[in-house]
C-alpha cells in the first residue's frame, strides 16, 4: 500500500515554514527526525494533566503517570519484538545505552587481552566507550575493514573472531553511508565463538523491521529522537540473562530494593538500570511516535524512502562533479556525496540558502572518512514525509552549485 504523503506532512507542524524566504526542505533526518503533532500533544497533555513522579506515589496522578510510562515500555517491547518488557531500559539515547554496556557488562566481563570488535563505519559513540574500556582493562579493540562501496568484509571479520573475542559491537545501518550491515550473519558468527553482540540501531530502527528474537543479538541501542520521538531519550534492549548478570550502572533511587548503611540490594531489571527520576514526559510521549510508525507500517515507510533514495541517485548521478560516497547494495535512505573538490561546508551552506537542510562534515565517523581519504561529505537523508518534488529542488540546487564551481 502506498502512503499519502501530503496527509502525513500535515501531521508535522515544523515542516510548514519558510527558511531564508524559501519553503523548508528537511533532509537531515539521520541527525534527527521531526515530530508529529501527536507527540507534541502527548508532551503537553502529560504536563497539563498527569505530571507526577512514578513508581512511588500512592495517588491518582502518580498512578496514571506510572501506567503511561510502563505502557511505552510495553510498546517498545512490541516495536522490536522482545520477549518481555523488563528487557527494555530507558536511557538518554544511543550514546548512553552503549556507555551503559561498556561500564557494566564491559567492566565486569572484559579483561586484559580480551578483544572487542567494531567496524570501520562506527559512529564515535560506538568507538570511544570501547577505547576507554580497553584503556582501563588492557583489552584490545579490533576493526572490521570495509570495501570501497562501504560494506564490511565479512571474511575479514571471521578472521578477527577467536575465543578472545568478548564483544562485537556494530552499527546496524551506517549514519554516514546508509549501508545496512549483514547483522544476522555477524551475530551468528560472533555467538559461535562465545562473544556477545551489541547492535547500534540508531539508524536502523526507523527504517527496518526489527525482530530482536530472530536477530538474537544481546543488546540493541537506539534513540527516540530519530524515530519521530522526543530528544534526550533512548533505549537499551538487553537479553534478560545478560542484564541480570551485569552490575548496576548508576546508584540512587529507583534502582534499589533495600538500602541500609551496611548493604544495599538492587532492584530487578529494568529498574536496576534506571536510577533516579527518569525522563517521564518524553517516555510517555514516545508511545505516540511508536503508534505513528505502526499506523503507517515500516514496510510502507521503507518503500517510500527507498523510492526517494533511488530517485535522488538517478537525478544526481547525471550532474558533472557529483561523487557518491557509500554505494553499498543494501542501504537505508542516506545519500552521502561530494561535489568535485568543493568543501562539504560550502555545499551545505549554499543548499541552506535554498531552504534545504542537509548535514555536512564527518558525521561523527572520522575513522570512516579517513578510510575514504576525505574530510567529510554532504549528507541528505530522507524520511517518510519527504517528497519527490523536494528531491528535484535539491538536484536543481546541486546542479547549479556544481556549475558555479566548474565555470
Amino acid at each position: 500500500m502506498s502512503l499519502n504523503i501530503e496527509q502525513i506532512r500535515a501531521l508535522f507542524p515544523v515542516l510548514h515554514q519558510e527558511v531564508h524566504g524559501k519553503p523548508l526542505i528537511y533532509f537531515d533526518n539521520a541527525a534527527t527526525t521531526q515530530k508529529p503533532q501527536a507527540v507534541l500533544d502527548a508532551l503537553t497533555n502529560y504536563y497539563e494533566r498527569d505530571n507526577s513522579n512514578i513508581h512511588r506515589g500512592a495517588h491518582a496522578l502518580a498512578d496514571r503517570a506510572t501506567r503511561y510510562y510502563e505502557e511505552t515500555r510495553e510498546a517498545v517491547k512490541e516495536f522490536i519484538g522482545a520477549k518481555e518488557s523488563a528487557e527494555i531500559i530507558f536511557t538518554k539515547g544511543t550514546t548512553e545505552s552503549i556507555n551503559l554496556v561498556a561500564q557494566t557488562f564491559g567492566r565486569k566481563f572484559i579483561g586484559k587481552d580480551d578483544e572487542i570488535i567494531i567496524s570501520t563505519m562506527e559512529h564515535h559513540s560506538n568507538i570511544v566507550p570501547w577505547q576507554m574500556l580497553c584503556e582501563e582493562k588492557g583489552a584490545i579493540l579490533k576493526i572490521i575493514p570495509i570495501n570501497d562501496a562501504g560494506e564490511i568484509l565479512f571474511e575479514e571479520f571471521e578472521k578477527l573472531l577467536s575465543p578472545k573475542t568478548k564483544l562485537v559491537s556494530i552499527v546496524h545501518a551506517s549514519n554516514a553511508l546508509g549501508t545496512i550491515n549483514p547483522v544476522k550473519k555477524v551475530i551468528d558468527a560472533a555467538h559461535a565463538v562465545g562473544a556477545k553482540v551489541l547492535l547500534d540501531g540508531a539508524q536502523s530502527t526507523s527504517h527496518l523491521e526489527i525482530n530482536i528474537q530472530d536477530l538474537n543479538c544481546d543488546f540493541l541501542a537506539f534513540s527516540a529522537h530519530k524515530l519521530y520521538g522526543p530528544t534526550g531519550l533512548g533505549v537499551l534492549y538487553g537479553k534478560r540473562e545478560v542484564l541480570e548478570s551485569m552490575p548496576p550502572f548508576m546508584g540512587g533511587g529507583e534502582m534499589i530494593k533495600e538500602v541500609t548503611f551496611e548493604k544495599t540490594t538492587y532492584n530487578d531489571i529494568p529498574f536496576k538500570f534506571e536510577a533516579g527520576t527518569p525522563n517521564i514526559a518524553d517516555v510517555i510521549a514516545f508511545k505516540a511516535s511508536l503508534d505513528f510508525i505502526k499506523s503507517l507500517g515500516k514496510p510502507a515507510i521503507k518503500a517510500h524512502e527507498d523510492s526517494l533514495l533511488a530517485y535522488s541517485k538517478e537525478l544526481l548521478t547525471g550532474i558533472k562533479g557529483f561523487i557518491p560516497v557509500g554505494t553499498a547494495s543494501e542501504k537505508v535512505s542516506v545519500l552521502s556525496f561530494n561535489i568535485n573538490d568543493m568543501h562539504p561546508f560550502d555545499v551545505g551552506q549554499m543548499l541552506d540558502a535554498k531552504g534545504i537542510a542537509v548535514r555536512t562534515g564527518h558525521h561523527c565517523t572520522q575513522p570512516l572518512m579517513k578510510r575514504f581519504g576525505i574530510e567529510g561529505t554532504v549528507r541528505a537523508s530522507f524520511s517518510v514525509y519527504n517528497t519527490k518534488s523536494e528531491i528535484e529542488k535539491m538536484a536543481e540546487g546541486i546542479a547549479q552549485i556544481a556549475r558555479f564551481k566548474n565555470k
Partner: protein
Amino acid sequence: MSSIKDIQEEIVSEFEILGDDKESTIFYIMELGGNLEAFPENERKEENIIKGCQSKVWLIADEVDGKVHYQADSNTDITKGLISLLIRVLNDRRPEEILKADLDFIQRIGMGSIIGSQRSNGLASMIKQMKLYALAFQTKQNA
C-alpha cells in the same frame, strides 16, 4: 589609499545591492575568494592554521615598510571569501591602525545570519589572529 572606514562603506553598499537574497549573497562571498593573492605553498603548514575555525584557514603576515601585509587561504570557498573581505579592509596598513579598527561592516551587513554561528565564530578568530600579528609588529617597531 582609502581609509578603513571608506572601504567598509564600500563593502556595505555592495552587500546592500544583494539585498535579502541569501543565495546570491553566498555566491557573491564565494566569488570574492578569487581575489586572494596566491598563497605560498611552503607556508601551508600546521603552525599557520588559525585555531577556532571549523574549516582550515592559513594566515601569514609580513611587515613591509612598516605596514602589515597579510596572505591567507582556506580549504572552503566561503571562508576564502570572508577572509578576502578582511584583507581588503586591513591589508597594508600600519599596525596601530589595524589594532584600532572597528570592523562594524560585519554587523552592518548582517554577516551573522548569512553565514551562521559556527562560521561567525571562525570569522572572529580570523580577526583576532590578524590583530595579533599587528600587535606583534607594533611591539617590534616600538622596541
